[in-house]
């Protein structure tokens, strides 16, 4: 029963995503080329990021999630936000990706995305919203989604070491690359190899710290956190709860 339901939500998301990818994103690019003389990379990239986030939000809303699921997600978001504020003086040391990956693995890809995206959004009520918010939301979200997806397909094991390695790579490659791209889009007018490369090179030390800290957080947190989430799921039958809806 659960598999059939996830299939349905998966299909819905595929349809919404297809509309976005085949219609909205090309339309945005076309408008950009026609009206903005093809020089406004930043607004166009911002719109694309928003369109990429929308399908997840729409599917989640249309599923009408139960109260228990909502509150568990809110708890994980709050823990990640509190973790980010606890380390605010140390640049790039944040446990957000670690918690998002744990959420994706224990609650599923869908919830992983929601935990990630909302952590980006909510923590910026404390750190300040800005043009970087949509990028952070999408980067955190897609990492949670990938973690959940790879875990459910059996590619990623739930053990501490593989999770930590995945977390380090995700922080360095996915989060780092996406936010450095956002910086390139915002600061430069043309996409030259030199400007892109130099921005990525400038980002490397920061992304290395972020990756290493994520590995460390996952080494410490992944086992106890997963155990606690599994326990709560078993004790209160959260999986069944989702089925009867």
């Amino acid at each position, binding site marked *: 029963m659960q598999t059939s339901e996830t299939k349905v939500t998966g299909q819905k998301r595929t349809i919404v995503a297809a509309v976005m990818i085949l219609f909205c994103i090309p339309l945005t690019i076309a408008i950009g080329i026609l009206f903005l003389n093809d020089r406004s990379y930043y607004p166009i990239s911002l719109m694309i990021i928003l369109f990429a986030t929308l399908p997840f*939000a729409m599917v989640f809303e249309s599923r009408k999630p139960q109260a*228990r699921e909502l509150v568990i997600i809110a708890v994980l978001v709050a823990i990640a936000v509190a973790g980010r504020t606890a380390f605010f003086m140390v640049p790039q040391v944040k446990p957000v990706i670690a918690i998002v990956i744990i959420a994706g693995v224990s609650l599923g890809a869908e919830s992983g995305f929601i935990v990630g995206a909302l952590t980006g959004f909510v923590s910026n009520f404390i750190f300040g919203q800005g043009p970087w918010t949509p990028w952070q939301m999408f980067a955190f979200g897609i990492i949670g989604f990938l973690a959940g997806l790879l875990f459910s397909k059996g590619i990623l094991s739930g053990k501490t070491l593989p999770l930590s390695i995945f977390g380090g790579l995700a922080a360095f490659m996915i989060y780092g690359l996406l936010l450095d791209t956002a910086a390139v889009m915002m600061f430069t007018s043309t996409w030259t190899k030199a400007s892109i490369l130099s921005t990525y090179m400038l980002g490397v030390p920061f992304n290395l710290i972020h990756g290493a800290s994520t590995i460390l957080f996952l080494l410490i947190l992944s086992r106890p956190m997963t155990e606690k989430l599994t326990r709560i799921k078993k004790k209160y039958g959260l999986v069944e709860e989702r089925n009867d809806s």
Partner: protein
Amino acid sequence: MRATKLHADAFSGCNPIVNFMYFAFVLGITIFFLHPVLLGISFVSGMVYSIYLNGGKAVKFNLAFLLPLMVAAAVINPAFNHQGVTILTYVRMNPITLESILYGIAAAVMIGSVILWFSCYNAVMTSDKFLYLFGRIIPALSLIISMALRFVPRYKAQIKRITNAQRGIGRDVSSGNVIVRIRSGLSILSILVTWALENAIETADSMKSRGYGLKGRTAYSNFRFDFRDRILVVAMLLFFAGIIASIALHRLSVLYFPAFVINVPDGFVLVAYAEYLIICTLPLMLDIREDLIWRTLRLKIVSSGNKSSNGADV
């Protein structure tokens, strides 16, 4: 400016729909159109409003963070972008063009304006306003956001209680060697997470028993949409439409490459500039209007002298 303030920011007191629309329009035009005059208007009004809202903190922030960022953006463009027909000089065989310098300055002002407007957004659009706006469109996600925002301070308070209880049984975080301290710190976090999850289930069950998710439930909100809000929304829509029309008719156009070309400032264009200036300075105008009202009220109170409390119910 802050010290002489007579009242809270008038624009923050408007309906969240007005606030959100305002920021969407101003940020949208700032990000999408790198037109020098529009950018200048946006930058100056964003700067003035951010200082009005945040006082000395804003000035410090602008000098320490915004200025270096803008200088960096202005320098990066001509260094990497060699388009343009007016070559000023060569740096290591690479041409530095006037057009790329102009573009760099425009991009820098754009980035500066966006950050200034977001600092205003952060002061005006508090989380309760966001939830009021999006509670109906994305109810489940809004509920998570509002719960997470509530949980963060709650967990901080709970950490204190757990720490005290642990100290009572001899597991003090402030004693012992580093490893012992880290271990007791981690066990506090572990207790917190277990408590948070158990507590969450309780909250959820309580919500369910009170009818969460049933049909016909309404949400409490503390905002009304009054006459002033209606006028502001209509005015903003009109001016915004005017600006979009001038852009669509190619009256507000600018080209940086290959050569810098800008539209002729005829009457039509001047009207569009004025419309944008009015949109951008809308909150400031509201505040000035409120200032005047308060001043005249005060004068009335003073002039009415000892006529007891007549002035209070104006």
